[in-house]
């Protein structure tokens, strides 16, 4: 292969991207070397198995991906702002919407939420780490390297261009030759390992490691939603794994599962994809529901209304989410009967979702609402999400979906659920738990600016798109006709408002890092109800010096009333903690290269890489590292310092 085939050539925007990547990489390398931080990076971050640090790495990566996906979005909106726009050509536009969708769902929304789960779930249930800390590190590095693999595609080899849904036969070897589509397959496959492992890990952690007295129905609601989400992950992700593997074999080794030739079944891909894909959208919404429930109860300073109904709706939604996948292709011609069945199952999801909405409203009833930034994000979610939900029901009515399908009406629907749902929750959760992670709050004034700008920008951007859809504007077209100009232009303005709001948010992080007051109390907002607020700030490596006995839903509220803490000096015992290890990083690094070689169909090198991965597994199997103990004296010292005793 020639070098000029290896790198993407001929596109000024992509050259710009290359220069930016080169500059940022050298800047990072320079800073690390100049400040002699390589050892620190390795010891404190790359080898860590601490769930809190892994969570922070997840969130930082997700923010970077939000930036990447957002930049893609702004480029698309620029191209669509005017008819006759020549900013992007068709091919480039296709690549950009493909990366945008994939990055936002797989490498932004999911990792962001998993990052929050990582940090918060063990704290909420009174655990000292995940059930399998090693696996947790492995999961993170699998996600990270998968994301890197996917993201380099636009400068090396060429970006995938068949949409995040990658329908066959379009995405097959015949119609999408070259490495682009392989990047999609291998990037998702590599990061999928981590997602599946995280699902199992969280499930076991929540089942086995809760504080004494915390029965399932006393768990905080965010933990519940995480728990159910991990079930969805465990049942849905294997479908994706298999589908990706089959398409990979098709493309690289010439099998004919999804091809037009040789009796392949191209439409089977659509089925497999959505059998995973619909549960996937619930993987990114249920934890968001959990976050909103926590934030709303906290800042309404009131117990969550209808806790049991909330839990059962999550379970019901999760169950139904496996029974609706056909609504993504009502137009495939499966017949009136099949479409009727799936219409009804789809609309039924709205029932438990509605119940949750009413429960949140009832939580606000007779409460004392404190309008902090996380609360603003959570409150704004309710009306915005309802618009997304009702349009979802409209799409669920198959007979009319024939008119909405594949249009901007659909685009607007899923942005109305994903942004007020998932993205608002990520912001709410990040701001809410920020003091637990970094020892200081984010500035409220700047945070409010960014919130209002984002909220308004969001509606300005996406509301007009419902009408564009009704006017026959199909999704994924790369240029518009003049009659759609006005609404598209408004939409683009909204998109840039959101971009600005994100920039302000990032500035807020920087500003708060410099100027915010440092937290000394563990209960940073003063209204904490659940156990994460019982830990001191900064949270010690072992989280809880003594694990409290739990009797009620809001465990920390009770502790505050009774004057208890997680530092019961009489009952201290040495705490067993896992040791740091570089193996997850190395193993996934090797698999990264193996996948990269497979993308270019360099089979020998890929096999060598795969063997490398196996060798790492064997090494790990003979690893007798039992971890270490933190002695009572050290715990005392740490806790006394943190609690100012």
């Amino acid at each position, binding site marked *: 292969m020639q070098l000029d085939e290896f790198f993407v050539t001929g596109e000024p925007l992509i050259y710009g991207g290359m220069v930016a990547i080169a500059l940022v990489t050298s800047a990072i390398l320079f800073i690390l070397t100049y400040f002699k931080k390589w050892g620190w990076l390795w010891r404190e971050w790359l080898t860590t198995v601490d769930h809190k640090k892994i969570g922070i790495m997840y969130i930082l990566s997700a923010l970077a991906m939000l930036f990447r996906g957002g930049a893609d979005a702004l480029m698309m909106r620029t191209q669509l702002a005017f*008819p*006759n726009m*020549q900013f992007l050509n*068709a091919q480039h536009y*296709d690549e950009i919407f493909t990366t945008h969708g994939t990055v936002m769902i797989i490498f932004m929304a999911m990792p962001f939420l998993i990052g929050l789960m990582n940090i918060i779930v063990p704290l909420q249930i009174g655990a000292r780490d995940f059930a399998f800390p090693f696996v947790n590190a492995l999961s993170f590095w699998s996600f990270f390297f998968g994301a890197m693999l996917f993201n380099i595609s636009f400068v090396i080899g060429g970006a995938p261009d068949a949409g995040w849904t990658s329908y066959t*036969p379009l995405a097959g070897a*015949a*119609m999408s*030759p070259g490495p682009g589509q392989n990047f999609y397959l291998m990037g998702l496959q590599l990061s999928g390992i981590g997602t599946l492992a995280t699902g199992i890990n969280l499930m076991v952690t929540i089942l086995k490691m809760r504080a004494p007295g915390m029965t399932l129905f006393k768990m905080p609601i965010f933990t519940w939603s995480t728990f159910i989400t991990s079930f969805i992950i465990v049942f849905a992700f294997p479908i994706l794994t298999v589908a990706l593997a089959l398409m990979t074999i098709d493309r690289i080794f010439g099998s004919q599962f999804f091809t*037009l*030739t040789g009796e392949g079944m*191209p*439409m089977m891909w659509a089925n497999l994809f959505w059998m995973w894909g619909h549960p996937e959208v619930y993987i990114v919404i249920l934890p968001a529901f959990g976050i909103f429930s926590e934030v709303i109860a906290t800042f*309404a300073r*009131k*117990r969550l209304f*209808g*806790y049991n109904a909330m839990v059962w709706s999550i379970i019901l939604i999760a169950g139904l989410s496996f029974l609706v996948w056909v609504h993504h*292709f009502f137009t495939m*011609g499966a017949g*009136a009967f099949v*479409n*009727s069945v799936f*219409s*009804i199952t789809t*609309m039924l999801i*709205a*029932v438990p979702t*509605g119940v949750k909405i009413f429960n949140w*409203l*009832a939580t606000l*009833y*007779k*409460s*004392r*609402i404190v*309008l*902090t930034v996380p609360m*603003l994000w959570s409150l704004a979610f*309710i009306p915005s999400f*309802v*618009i997304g939900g009702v349009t979802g*029901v*409209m799409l669920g*009515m198959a*007979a*009319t979906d*024939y*008119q909405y*399908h*594949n249009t901007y009406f659909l685009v607007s629907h899923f942005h109305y659920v994903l942004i007020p749902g998932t993205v608002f929750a990520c912001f709410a959760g990040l701001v809410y738990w920020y003091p637990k992670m970094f020892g200081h709050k984010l500035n409220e004034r700047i945070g409010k600016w960014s919130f209002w700008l984002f909220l308004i920008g969001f509606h300005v951007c996406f*509301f007009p798109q419902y009408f564009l*859809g*009704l*006017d*026959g504007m*199909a999704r*994924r*077209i*790369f240029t518009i006709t003049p009659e759609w100009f006005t609404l598209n232009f408004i939409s683009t303005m909204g998109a840039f408002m959101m971009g600005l709001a994100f920039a302000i948010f990032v500035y807020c992080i920087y500003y708060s890092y410099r100027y915010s007051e440092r937290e000394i109390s563990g209960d940073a907002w003063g209204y904490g109800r659940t156990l994460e607020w019982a830990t001191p700030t900064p949270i010690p490596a072992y989280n809880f010096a003594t694990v409290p006995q739990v009797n009620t839903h809001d465990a920390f509220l009770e502790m505050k009333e009774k004057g208890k803490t997680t530092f019961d000096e009489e009952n201290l015992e040495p705490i067993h903690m896992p040791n740091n290890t570089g193996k997850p990083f190395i193993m996934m690094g090797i698999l990264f290269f193996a996948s990269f070689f497979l993308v270019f169909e360099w089979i020998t090198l890929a096999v060598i890489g795969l063997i490398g991965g196996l060798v790492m597994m064997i090494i790990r199997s003979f690893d007798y590292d039992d971890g270490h103990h933190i002695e009572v004296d050290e715990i005392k010292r740490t806790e006394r310092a943190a609690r100012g005793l």
Partner: protein
Amino acid sequence: MNQQRHPFKKWLALVPLGFIVFLSGCELAVLDPAGPVAQSQKDLMIYSLYFMFGIIIVVFVAFGVMVFKYRDNKPNRKDEDYKPNLHGNTLIEVVWTVIPIIIVTALSIPTVTTLFELEKPPESSADKEPLVVYATSADWKWFFSYPEQGIETVNYLHIPTDRAIEFHLSSADSMASFWIPRLGGQKYGMAGMENILYLQADVPGTYNGRNANFNGEGFTAQTFEVQAQPQEQFDTWVQETQEQAPELTQDEYDSLLKPSLVEEMTFSSTHLQWVDHGTNAGRDYSIIRHRNAYDETLHIENVPGPGWISENE
């Protein structure tokens, strides 16, 4: 922080209001049906919209009241207004579970009946045999074959008004979705499979149609125009075409299948004599001939002026 202005989002109330004004005030393609299929879909949409507005209004009002009334910094809050341990009420929970179930039922029934109706030709033209048209997508163009008339068009089609059209949808290669918004909803055309879609125009006119399902570089340009005209005019057009248009040869057809953008064309014979891409035998006809044609992109750019897209170089 509590001294900020209250957040009751008055502007949110404008949202549904704007919605109604907008919907009644302008002619969005899907809401401006030109035939019974699109009409029945529009009726169902409007029916569902009443429920959706109902839900939106109830939630927005409840939301507004809660946030306004129970904000911490509201002047003169009474102590009984704060019940931190209130956590359930069976009656109200049953009510707000049952009402959505009723709504879903009310939406399901007409959805199901409409779905079954759409599988058949429209009632209003039951006295006439539907006109059969094969609509075949090939990257990135449309072939319309009229087997009974023995003619074929590319990227445009003529149909008689007040008569059902029975479209036989398929594709020579990637999956496409055949959609004429003002006549009715879309359906996929896939290689090796055939879908039937009934549409009908009652109003003579020119309607835009397109492939709605992304299928590669030329997707945006894969559009076509529909001329709906009274039966006599349609018959004249058919006759002229039969007499004046050239025959379609297999060689020419095969080269047209190659991934490309092409102009409108007219022929006095159909490609169905060699291949029906909707059958299992025809599913790989195009791909075995043009396998290597996808290696290079077409460099499709947006070129200002009429015919707003064209291949560059």
